[in-house]
C-alpha cells in the first residue's frame, strides 16, 4: 500500500476535535505541574470545559454534516463516527463530574487522574473513527493504556491492585490476539482498510483472523466468553473508573465492530450471524443468571452490563440499517441509565464506605432522591416502559424480528424477566427494608448534576424519543451505503421459527 501524506488545512479540520483535545490535555497537565497548590476540583472543571468545547465542535460538525476520510482511509469521519465521539465525550464529562468527590480517596497523583481519563477518551475518539485494522489497533491500545493505570488507582487497596493486574494481563493477551488476527487477515487479503475488503473469499486464514479480532473486541465489550475480567475489575476499580469502563470503551469497540461486521464482512452475514446469535444468547443468559447471586452492587452492575451487551449484539446480529440504528439508540439509553446508577453507587459509598447491596437498606428513607433515581435507572436497565431502556429494547427487538431471528428474541425476552428479579432485589432493599442507620445522606453538587442529567436522559428519551431516533437514523444514513449488499442477503432459514 502506498501511503501518501498530503494534508491540506481543510483535511486537518476533520481532526480538529482530536487536535484540540490533545492541546487541552497538555494545558491541564501543565496547570497541574505549575500550580500544585490548586484545588484538584479546578482541574476537573478545566477538563470538563475542554471536553465541552470539543463536544460543541462535534455538534457543529454534525449539524453541518462535515465528513471525509484521512490518511488513505485510515481515519474516517462520518456521522456515525461523530455520534460515537459525542457519546464518548458525554460519558467522559459525566464520569469526571461524578469523580470529583471520589478523587479525595486517592493518596497520590490526583491531578493526573483527570489527565488519564481525558487521554483514554481521546483514544476512544480515534477508535470511533478508525477504519483500518492498524488504526484500530493503535487507538485501541492507546485508550486501554489509560485504563490500565486508572483501574489500579487506589494504590493501597488490594482489590484495586488485583483488578488492575487482571485487567492488564488479560488486556495484553487480547491485544496479542488482535495483532495476530490482523496479521492473518492482512496475509490473506493484502488489505487493511475495511471498505476495501468487501468482496474477498472466505479462506480458513481469514476466518481465524477475524475470529481472533472478534475475540479481542469481545474482550473490550465484555461479551461471554471473553468476560472473565469484568466482575473482578469492576469490583476492584475505583467506582468512577468502573462507570467509565462500563460505558465508553463498549461504545467505542461497538463502533469498530459495526464497521467490521457490516462493512468488511457484510457479504459473509449468513456465516457470522451464527456467531453473533450464540454469543448474544450466552451473554444475556449468563450475565442475568449470575447477577442474581451477587451481593455487591458493582458486581451486580457488572453482570447486568454483560447481559446488556448481549442485547446490543441482537441488533448486530440483525445486521441491517435498522439494527444498526437500534444499537446506537440502545447505547444512548444505556449511557444515561448506567452512568446514573453508578453515580448513585458513588454517592452511597461516599456516605457509607461500602458497596454491598445490603447497605442499600432503607435508602428510600435516608435519601428519597437517591433511591428514586436508582429505581428509575434500574427500571430503565430492565426495560420498563416508558423509560429509555424500554424503547431501546423495543427498537432492537423490532429490528431483529424483521430479520426473523425468533430464537434470539425469545431468549432476549425471557432474560428481561430474569433481570427484573435482581433489579427488584435492590429495589426491595431500598424501599421495603428499614435502614440500620437512618441518618440522611448528603450529595455533592456535581454528583447531583450527574444524577439529574441521567434522570433527564432516561425520562426524555423514554417519553419523547423522536429527536433521538431521528439522530441515530441520520447517523447511520451514509454508513448504510456500505451495508446495502449485506441487507439483501436473506437470513438462514434455520433461524426462522415458523
Amino acid at each position, binding site marked *: 500500500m502506498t501511503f501518501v501524506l498530503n494534508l491540506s488545512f481543510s483535511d486537518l479540520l476533520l481532526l480538529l476535535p482530536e487536535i484540540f483535545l490533545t492541546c487541552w490535555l497538555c494545558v491541564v497537565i501543565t496547570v497541574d505541574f505549575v500550580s500544585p497548590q490548586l484545588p484538584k476540583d479546578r482541574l476537573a472543571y478545566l477538563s470538563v470545559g475542554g471536553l465541552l468545547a470539543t463536544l460543541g465542535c462535534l455538534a457543529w460538525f454534525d449539524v453541518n454534516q462535515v465528513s471525509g476520510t484521512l490518511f488513505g482511509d485510515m481515519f474516517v469521519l462520518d456521522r456515525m463516527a461523530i455520534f460515537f465521539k459525542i457519546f464518548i465525550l458525554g460519558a467522559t464529562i459525566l464520569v469526571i463530574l461524578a469523580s470529583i468527590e471520589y478523587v479525595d480517596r486517592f493518596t497520590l497523583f490526583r491531578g493526573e487522574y483527570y489527565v488519564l481519563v481525558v487521554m483514554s477518551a481521546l483514544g476512544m475518539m480515534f477508535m470511533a473513527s478508525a477504519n483500518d485494522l492498524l488504526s484500530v489497533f493503535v487507538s485501541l491500545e492507546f485508550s486501554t493504556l489509560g485504563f490500565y493505570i486508572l483501574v489500579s488507582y487506589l494504590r493501597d487497596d488490594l482489590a484495586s491492585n488485583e483488578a488492575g493486574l487482571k485487567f492488564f494481563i488479560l488486556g495484553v493477551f487480547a491485544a496479542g490476539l488482535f495483532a495476530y488476527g490482523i496479521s492473518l487477515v492482512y496475509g490473506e487479503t493484502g488489505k487493511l482498510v475495511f471498505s476495501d475488503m468487501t468482496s474477498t473469499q472466505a479462506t480458513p486464514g481469514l476466518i481465524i483472523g477475524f475470529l481472533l479480532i472478534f475475540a479481542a473486541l469481545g474482550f473490550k465489550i465484555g461479551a461471554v466468553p471473553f468476560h472473565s475480567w469484568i466482575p473482578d475489575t469492576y469490583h476492584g476499580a475505583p467506582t468512577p473508573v468502573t462507570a467509565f469502563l462500563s460505558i465508553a470503551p463498549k461504545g467505542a469497540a461497538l463502533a469498530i465492530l459495526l464497521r467490521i461486521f457490516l462493512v468488511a464482512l457484510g457479504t459473509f452475514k449468513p456465516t457470522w450471524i451464527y456467531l453473533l446469535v450464540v454469543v448474544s444468547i450466552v451473554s444475556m443468559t449468563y450475565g442475568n443468571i449470575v447477577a442474581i447471586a451477587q451481593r455487591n452492587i458493582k458486581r451486580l452492575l457488572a453482570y447486568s452490563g454483560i447481559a446488556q451487551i448481549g442485547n446490543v449484539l441482537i441488533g448486530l446480529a440483525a445486521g441491517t440499517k435498522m439494527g444498526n440504528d437500534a444499537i446506537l439508540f440502545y447505547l444512548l439509553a444505556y449511557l444515561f441509565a448506567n452512568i446514573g446508577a453508578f453515580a448513585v453507587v458513588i454517592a452511597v459509598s461516599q456516605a457509607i464506605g461500602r458497596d454491598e447491596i445490603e447497605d442499600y437498606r432503607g435508602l428510600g428513607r435516608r435519601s428519597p432522591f437517591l433511591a428514586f433515581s436508582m429505581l428509575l435507572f434500574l427500571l430503565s436497565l430492565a426495560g420498563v416502559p416508558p423509560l429509555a431502556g424500554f424503547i431501546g429494547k423495543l427498537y432492537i427487538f423490532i429490528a431483529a*424480528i424483521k430479520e426473523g431471528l425468533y430464537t434470539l428474541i425469545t431468549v432476549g425476552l425471557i432474560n428481561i*424477566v430474569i433481570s427484573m428479579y435482581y433489579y427488584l432485589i435492590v429495589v426491595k432493599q431500598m424501599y421495603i427494608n428499614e435502614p440500620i442507620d437512618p441518618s440522611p445522606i448528603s450529595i455533592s453538587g456535581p454528583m447531583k448534576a450527574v444524577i439529574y442529567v441521567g434522570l433527564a436522559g432516561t425520562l426524555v428519551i423514554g417519553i419523547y424519543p423522536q429527536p433521538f431516533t431521528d439522530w441515530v437514523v441520520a447517523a447511520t444514513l451514509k454508513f448504510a451505503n456500505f451495508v446495502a449488499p449485506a441487507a439483501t442477503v436473506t437470513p438462514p432459514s434455520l433461524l426462522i421459527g415458523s
Partner: protein
Amino acid sequence: MLEELTAVFPILSCILFLPVVGAIVLWLIDDEDMVRSSTLTIALVELALSVFVLLRFVPESAAMQFAERVEWIPALGISYHLAVDGISVLFVGLTAFLSVLVVIYSWDTIRHQVKLYMMCLLALETTTMGVFLSLDLILFFVFWELMLIPSYFLIKLWGGGADRHYAALKFVIYTLLGSVFMLVGIALLDINYHQWASLHHSDHAYSFDLLELLTVPIPMSQQILIFWLMFLGFAFKAPVFPFHTWLPDALLEGPIGMAVVLAGLKLGTFGFIRFSIPLLPDASKSDTIVTVVVVLGLCAILYGAWMALVQPDFRRLLAYSSVSHLGFVVVGLFALNYQGLQGSLLTMINLGFSTAGLFFIAGFLYSRQQTTELSAFGGMAKQVPLLATFFLIIGLASIGLPGTNGFVGEFLILLGAFEAKWWVGSIAVLGVIFGAAYFLWYYERSMLGPLGSSVKSTMSDLQLREMVIAVSLSIMILWIGLYPSPFLRIMNGSVQALVDRLHHDKTAALEQSITERR
C-alpha cells in the same frame, strides 16, 4: 368499529393524566388529612369526567369516540392514540367509580405512609385508565407494564400478610413473563403491517395503531402464532386457568384496595375482546384455538369453584371464585356470538361491582376481627345486621341471582355458550351451582346460626364511610340487574361490529368503508 369521531376537547387525556398529576401534587402536601381529602377530590373529579364521557357517548354505535391522535415515535410508527368505544367506555367509568370507593375505604384503614399509598393508588388509576383508553398497541403495552410498579409497592408496603414480599414478586414476575410474549406478538403484528404496507407502497412504514392494523389482512399461520403469544400475555394477567397461581397470593397478601383493583378490573379478558379477537378473527374462530381456550375456561369454572368450596379464608375463597368467574367470561368470549360477547362484556363490568364489593366486605370483616378466616366469625347477623344485609346483596349478585346484575351477564353467557356448543353450556351451568354452594355455605357459617366464640359482643355495625361504599355498590348492582338496557345499548354497536368482523359476510363492506375513509 372503524369509524372514528375526533374529540373537540382532549377529555380522554384529561382523564388519563389527572390522577398522575394529582399524585405529583400530593407530594407537596404534608398534612395527612389534607392528603386524604385531596385524593378524594381528585378521584371524584375523575369520576365526574368519566360520567360526562359516558353521558355524551353515542350509544348503539360502533365508532371510536372522543378520539385523539398525535404521532409519538414516527420512526417506529408509534402514536399516542386514545379513544373509547362501546367495549372500553364502561371500563373507564368502572375504574373511576372503584377508585373513589377505594379512596373512601382507605381513609382510616391505611395508617402509615398515607401519602405514598395515595400516590401509588392514583398512579395505578392512571395506568389502568391507559390500558382501557389506548388504541396504539405500544401505548397500551406501556401502561400495561407500568401498572406493575405501583402494584408492586402497594402489595409490598401495605399488604397485611407475612408472605407479601413473595406475593408481590410473584405477581410482577408472572405478569412480566406473560407480557414479554405479548410484546413479540405486537411486534409481529407490526412486521406484518410493514410487509403489507411496502407491497402496497403505503407511506406508513410501520404502525402499531389498532385501527390501521385492523385494515391489514394477516396470514392464517401468523394469526395463530400471534394469537398464542398475545394469549399468554392476557392469560397471565386475567388470570386464565392454569396461569392463575399468583392471584390467590396477591389478593390475600396485598391490601384490600389493591385487591379491589386487581380482582375488580378484568384487564386480561379486556385484552382478548379489545385486541386478540378483532385483530385475529380467523385464528380466534379456528377449531383448535376455540376448543383449547374454551376447555381452559371450563376447567377454570369448575376448578375455581371447587377450590373456593374448601377455602377457610374468605379472601382466598374470593380469589378462587374470581378464577371461576373468569372462566365464565372466557367461555362467553369464545362462544364468538353476539350473546356470548355481550354477556362476557357485561359480566366483566358486573364483577367490577360484585367481586370488588365482596373484597370491600372482606375488608370490613378484616377491620373488625383482624382476619378473614372463617373460624373468627359466626352468627354475626345479629351483631351487625347492616353488614350482613349488604354482604348478602353483593354476594347474591356474585352468584347471579335473578334481579341482580350477575344474573343478566351469566344468563347471556350461558345462552351464547349453548348456542355455540351445547356441551360447553351444560358444563358451565355446573359452575353456577357450585358458585351458589360456596358462597351460601360461607355466608351461613359466618353470619347465621349461633354467635361464634371469638366474635366480640361490642362489634360495631357499618360506619358512615362503609355505608357509602356498600350502598353505592348495591345501587349499581340492582340497577344493572333490573334495568340493564342503558348499559347494553352502550355496548351493542361495538359488539355487533365485532360479530360482523368475525363472521366474514360483512367484512367486505367494512373494508369498503375504510378505503372511503382514507
